[in-house]
Structure formats: C-alpha cells, structure tokens
C-alpha cells in the first residue's frame, strides 16, 4: 500500500535504518560509559564499541581504522580538513584549489581562510558540473598545499573524476581532500585506489544517525597531519578533542556495514526507479536534466521544468511528496541555487528546478505517485504561467525587457 508522505529528499538526510537504531539503543543507557575511561568496565564497553565501529567505517572506504577521526558531522570534518591542513602546512604554502560547486561547508571555510591570508582558486565547472583537469593542473603553484574537490555534488549528483584529480595533485606533491558526504555508502569509494589524503563524510546521509561524521586522514604515503581545531582532552589522536558520541558512532559503524553489504543491490534497485522517474518526467515538454547523466550518483536526478517556478511547483504536492528545489524562494537568501548557476543555467531555469533524492526505502508505487503528481502540477501551473503562454506563441522571452526587481 502506498504510504504518504513520500520522502524524496535523501540528499538532505536519510531516514535511519531500523537495524542501525537497534544497534545503537544499548549505548544510551546500558553502556553509557565514556570511551576514554580506561579504568573500569563502563569505559571498556564504550571503547570496545567505538573500536568496532571504527573498523566498520574504515572498511567501507578501504582505510585503516587508525585513519578515522570521528567528528560531529561532515561540516566539522570539512572545517577540520581545510583549516587543519592550512595551519599545519603553512610553511609549505597558502594556496588551496577548490571548485565553485562545492558545499557551503567547504566554500565558506575557504572564504574564512582567505581572510586569514589564504589564496584560493575556485575552478569553474562545465555544464555537466565537472571541472576541467587541465585547468586544475594549470592552477597548481609551488605554494599549493591542497586540492579540495567534492566526490559527488549534493544538488545534481555529478561525480567528479577523483582518481584523475588525485593523480594530478600527487604528481605535484599536493594533498587531496574530498568532501564525500553524498558518495560514501552510495557508490564504491576507496581512499587508496582513489588516491585520497583526507575525506569528509557523515552518518546521516547513509541511513545512520545525525550528529556524527568522520574525517579520514591518511597515515602512510604520505603521512598527513592536521592542526586540531578543537582543543581539550586530546581525543582522536589529538586531532579532535571531545568525549566521543558513542551511540552515534556505533550507529555510524552499523550504517557503514549495511551500506557495504547492500550497496550493490540498493544501487541496482534505486537507479532503476530513478531512471523510471526521470524518463517519465522528461516526457513533459521543456523539461531538462541538470548536470551529468553519465557521471552521476545512482539515486539523484535534478530536473528543470521550464516556465514553472520551483516553489510554486512544490506547493502543488509538498503535503505528500518531500522534495527540494533550486528556486530562490525555497532558500533564505532569495538567490537561486549557485550550483545550478555554475552549470551555466539561466536564473529562470534554476528557479524551475526540482531535486530528487531517492533512497533505500523508496518504493515503486511512490515513484508512480510522484510521476503523476508532478506531471499534473507542471501542466496546471503552465496553464497559469504567462511565460508558458508567450513560449507557446513563439515569443522569444529574451527579447522582452524585463523590469528586474
């Protein structure tokens, strides 16, 4: 039976898998100990659970458990990687290379570092959302300390050529940091095969709990160090002080284990549903996919419905379907999505976009319902849209002098 409301905003956060929740529950009350308490059974139980989770997390990304630094989430991990490397490698240089479509946790941290003397190059992306590797290489200077390029984009799902990026960076002795928040658990990520030195990711995007994430920090070839951004008891090998969130970490570990076991079958099922949704919606006139369709996360689709405004569109069904839009009206800033604009989309198309993030618990009847609801709403709103009328009359909308307000 169809269950409403339908959740298709899995890029924002995923529901927790019941198996994850089950694993966590003993660590709230029964095993409440501090993992740093070395002298009694309460501490031992907590430490043992954390150690086990650290192995589960490390295994998913092909890392050594010692290379996992638990944090409060991906934003903190992004901050720690960028600020920590910037401070630690100050003697080598002050230049960081990133891209315009990065998450705000990376972009705003870079802006912060610029105020403190960093030089940052923001690489442009093409209409698929990919950086140009030649531009990347050309941007490297003797003072470049790090390339910070996301693994996969949160709005359009475009997967960056991380292996090629890291090969270039390594050739020049530059560290590679990737925000892999959307990728880990969804597609195979291997820090060694991919040549990654630092990597941020989080539990709540892979059916784990909120409030826990990790920074992978390479220990060999090269040994990477970051300056701690949180001072205190010297937890996490001195890189991140603060009592460990034991239940969260246990859940994170379990979530990683499940992703590892079920990634292949999940991907197969979810990408089929995504393709069904996408091809059905593309039957509507003037509907366009944003970003790369070839290099893309299997559960993501970002589609613009020209001449219909995103928030208005969402209103047609948001009681029953949870989605995001790149429209300005859905954000606090009143600016349309900077990611879509970076692809070269006009503001009008950015305003008209919807982001679909499918997940482990998405069902086929939910997708069928969504196709119907969205198609109907698009058609209804176009009947109401002056732009659609003009388009149908063959008027070139660019020829009109709009009074921008």
């Amino acid at each position, binding site marked *: 039976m169809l269950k409403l409301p339908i959740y298709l905003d899995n890029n924002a956060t995923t529901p927790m898998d019941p198996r994850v929740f089950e694993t966590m529950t003993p660590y709230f009350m029964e095993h409440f100990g501090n993992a740093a308490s070395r002298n009694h059974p309460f501490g031992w139980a907590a430490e043992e659970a954390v150690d086990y989770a650290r192995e589960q997390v490390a295994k998913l990304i092909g890392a050594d458990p010692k290379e996992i630094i638990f944090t409060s989430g991906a934003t903190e991990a992004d901050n720690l990687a960028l600020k920590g490397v910037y401070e630690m490698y100050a003697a080598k240089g002050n230049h960081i290379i990133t891209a315009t479509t990065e998450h705000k946790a990376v972009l705003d941290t870079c802006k912060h570092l610029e105020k403190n003397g960093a030089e940052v190059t923001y690489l442009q992306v093409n209409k698929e959302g990919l950086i140009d590797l030649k531009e990347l290489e050309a941007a490297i200077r003797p003072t470049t300390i790090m390339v910070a390029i996301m693994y996969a984009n949160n709005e359009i799902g475009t997967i960056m050529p991380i292996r090629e990026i890291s090969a270039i960076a390594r050739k020049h002795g530059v560290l590679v940091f990737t925000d892999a928040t959307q990728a880990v658990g969804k597609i195979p990520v291997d820090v060694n095969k991919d040549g990654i030195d630092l990597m941020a990711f989080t539990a709540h995007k892979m059916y784990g709990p909120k409030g826990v994430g990790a920074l992978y920090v390479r220990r060999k070839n090269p040994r990477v160090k970051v300056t701690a951004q949180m001072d205190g008891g010297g937890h996490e090998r001195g890189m991140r002080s603060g009592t460990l969130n034991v239940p969260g970490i246990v859940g994170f570990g379990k979530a990683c284990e499940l992703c590892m076991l079920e990634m292949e079958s999940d991907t197969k099922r979810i990408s089929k549903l995504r393709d069904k949704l996408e091809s059905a919606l593309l039957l509507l006139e003037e509907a366009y996919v944003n970003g790369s369709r070839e290099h893309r996360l299997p559960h993501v689709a970002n589609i613009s419905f020209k*001449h*219909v*405004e*995103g*928030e*208005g569109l969402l*209103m*047609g069904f948001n009681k029953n379907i949870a989605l995001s839009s790149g*429209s*300005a*009206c859905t954000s*606090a800033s*009143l600016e*349309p999505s900077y990611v879509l604009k970076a692809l070269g989309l*006009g*503001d*009008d198309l950015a*305003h008209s976009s919807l982001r679909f993030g499918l997940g482990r618990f998405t069902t086929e009847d939910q997708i069928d319902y969504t196709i119907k609801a969205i198609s109907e709403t698009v058609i209804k709103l176009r*009947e*109401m*849209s*002056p*732009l*659609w*009328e003009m388009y149908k009359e063959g008027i070139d*909308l660019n020829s*009109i002098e*709009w*009074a*921008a*307000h």
Partner: protein
Amino acid sequence: MAYSEKVIDHYQNPKNVGTLDKSSKNVGTGLVGAPECGDVMRLQIEVDQATGMITDAKFKTFGCGSAIASSSLATEWLKGKSVDEALKIDNMEIVEELNLPPVKIHCSVLAEDAIKAAINDYREKNGLEKIKFEESVVH
C-alpha cells in the same frame, strides 16, 4: 514555511486565470517581474469605457504560491471597482488578507505594480497620460 489557508486556497483554486485580448482598446495589460527573479505576473483589466468600471480581470503568474495567490486575489478585488478605486489598492492590504510572511511581501508589491501597470496601459491606449508612481520600496 507553512502557507496560510488563504494562500493555499487561491493556489489550489485560483480565480480568474486567463487572457484578455491585449489589442482591445478597453483592455489594460500589466506585465511585471522577471523570469530571473523567479516571478512574473501578467494582470489584465477590461474597462467599461462609459462608466470607467472594471468589468473583468484576468491573470497569469509564474511564481511561488504567494505570488499566484496575490495576483488571484488582486483580480478578485479589481472586478467591480472603478479604475480610480483600483489605483488605491495597497500591497499591504494583500499582505494582511493573505497573511503573507515578511519574506513574501515582495509578491504583494508585484501584484500592486501589476495593477498600476495595467491601468497605465489602459490609460495610454485611450489617450490619457500615464500616471507616475513612486518607486515601490519593498523589493
């Protein structure tokens, strides 16, 4: 953000969606906003030239629910008013009627601008001087 019931009602059952003959002398058309800004309103009035009364009003809007509701409400208010009365419609009345939150006030401003633009278009077509309005403040 939760929408007020009135916004939802106008969104679901918009009043007076449609198109009047813009070449007709007794029809005034106002097209305001810009696609880049995420909202475009087209508001039209049909005026009985003998009495100066607005006999019909239609709109089409590209925009969020609040923009659609603001223009739908505006057309309702316009019908049966004289052109002079229509000029007095203030955007804050729309804000109050629809319970628009501060972030959506610009939708009501756009509706007021659309009314004024439609009236000026009508005046121009009928050899009357365009009225100069003060720039709306909230944008």
